[in-house]
């Protein structure tokens, strides 16, 4: 059975840029444990001869011809941006002073 620790939840939260309080770490550790436990039951019925499924439809090789299609205008592309400058998406400081 999977057992997920507080530390693992904290690590995942950091990777997902989520700020969690201490009590939330405990709370989610329990919930994630339940979820992983439920998913793990699949492996009880799926034996070695059942390949893992990543796609529900038996499709392969869906490809597109290399032909240019119209793009959005810069105005349209930027219309959902919280901030913009010089026709570019403006984002907050990426690295601090270090």
């Amino acid at each position: 059975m999977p057992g997920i620790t507080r530390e693992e939840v904290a690590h995942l939260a950091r990777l997902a840029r989520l700020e969690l309080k201490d009590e939330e770490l405990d709370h989610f550790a329990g919930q994630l444990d339940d979820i992983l436990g439920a998913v793990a039951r699949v492996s009880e019925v799926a034996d070695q001869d059942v390949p893992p499924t990543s796609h529900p439809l038996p499709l392969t090789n869906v490809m597109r011809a290399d032909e240019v299609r119209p793009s959005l205008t810069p105005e349209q592309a930027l219309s959902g941006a919280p901030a913009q400058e010089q026709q570019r998406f403006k984002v907050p400081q990426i690295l601090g002073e270090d």
Partner: protein
Amino acid sequence: MTVTTDLVSYEDALASYDPVMGLEVHVELGTKTKMFCGCSTTLGADANSQTCPTCLGLPGSLPVVNAIGVESAIKIGLALNCSIAEWCRFARKNYFYPDMPKNFQTSQYDEPIAFDGYLDVQLEDGEVFRVEIERAHMEEDTGKSTHVGGATGRIHGASHSLLDYNRAGIPLIEIVTKPIEGAGERAPEVAKAYVAELREVIKSLDVSEARMDKGQMRCDVNLSLRPNGTKEFGTRSETKNVNSLRSVERAARFEIQRHAAVLSSGGTIVQETRHFHEDDGSTTSGRIKDNAEDYRYFPEPDLVPVAPAREWVEELRAGLPEMPRVRRNRLREEWGVTEHDMQSMLNAGAVDPIVATIDAGAPADQARKWWMGELARNANEQGKALDELSITPEQVARVTALVAAGDLNDKLARQVIEGVLAGEGDPDAVVEKRGLKVVSDEGALTAAVEEAIAGNQAIADKIRGGKVAAAGALVGAVMKATRGQADAARVKELILEKLGVEG
């Protein structure tokens, strides 16, 4: 910058340590559209004018892979002697960084389309070194960041950044070598030769222009040292975005000297990325790679698997061009030139124009003479590459044909080339406009010869007396009178004939 790094001499480093390298090269494909959407890939467009809901990662959009992108990946894999996957998937590489609006890069993880190959590279002295290829996989490029408010556009100290996503989604093929061992002191040279050879292969496949100066090909250099005679790899550093052949060699050399200094003073190498500085060839610390590997890859649900039919793969294999190293060796033998001369032609970018000129009918030696002489000089003066000159191989071939037919001599041919380069039209048009044809009218030549004899009786007497070498002065006089447009050999014949002397 005043960062000083302790280094030991290259010789001392190699006396104690054995370098192991890993090279990761990203090649931007020359497709018309992006990897997963129909946005144009033309360089230099207005900021954010080549994006759509798919490459911006807007909700509800669905990617579809570019068929030419897949085909190019297979061609590259085949050219690198790789196996081509029968079935493979794309994967999401999750990370938070604003250069990808989706918060993940669509890449491939444990199922690359091409794997287990090799590329033989030839060093300048002719030694052949086999570089083994781990994999070549398909992915997409990121957007372009501009950092504002810091010193000289650096990310450190910037107040904010601006993103242009035109480049986000342009097809990339990442080619990763297996650890390159056994190169010893030649490791930096092998790194450079590998990247150079890879670039030639990519160009020959016509899947990318592979211009490093335009960022179409970029190299990351992984390097570690281990004490001589040991097997286990040391801790590596990864120098990112080394963007010229010379820099690849310098970065490897610098890291060997830096690692050796750290290790020999009892220190340990930190596993980190490093930035390369073109100005002084040094590297400086980037980010520490602690949990950076935690990209939580998972199969991309929005793209179906790619399962290249074996017939398609074989068709692509059959259509591969002659590989550059094989072609170079063949041409070197056909032309009967030395390794060194061949290298000069390669370095000058003259091989393709020379071959095209020969294909257009010129003798090989003439084609080489013009491209490596007059034209190379001209390109150098203009700061251009040979293939950027405004003369075509066909035009050069036409000039050599005019020389062979006796219509032009070398001096006139140079003027014709000059005229073509100056935009005066085809060789024949330049000959016409500038009046450059060799005077082959015997009457006019005979008159000029008689005039020269009449005006230089003393010399004429010497020649009559048997001093045939003195004829040169009379030839000069005739050439001057005809403004260089006479066939000098014929002039000499006529002079000797007139004076009744056997040549």
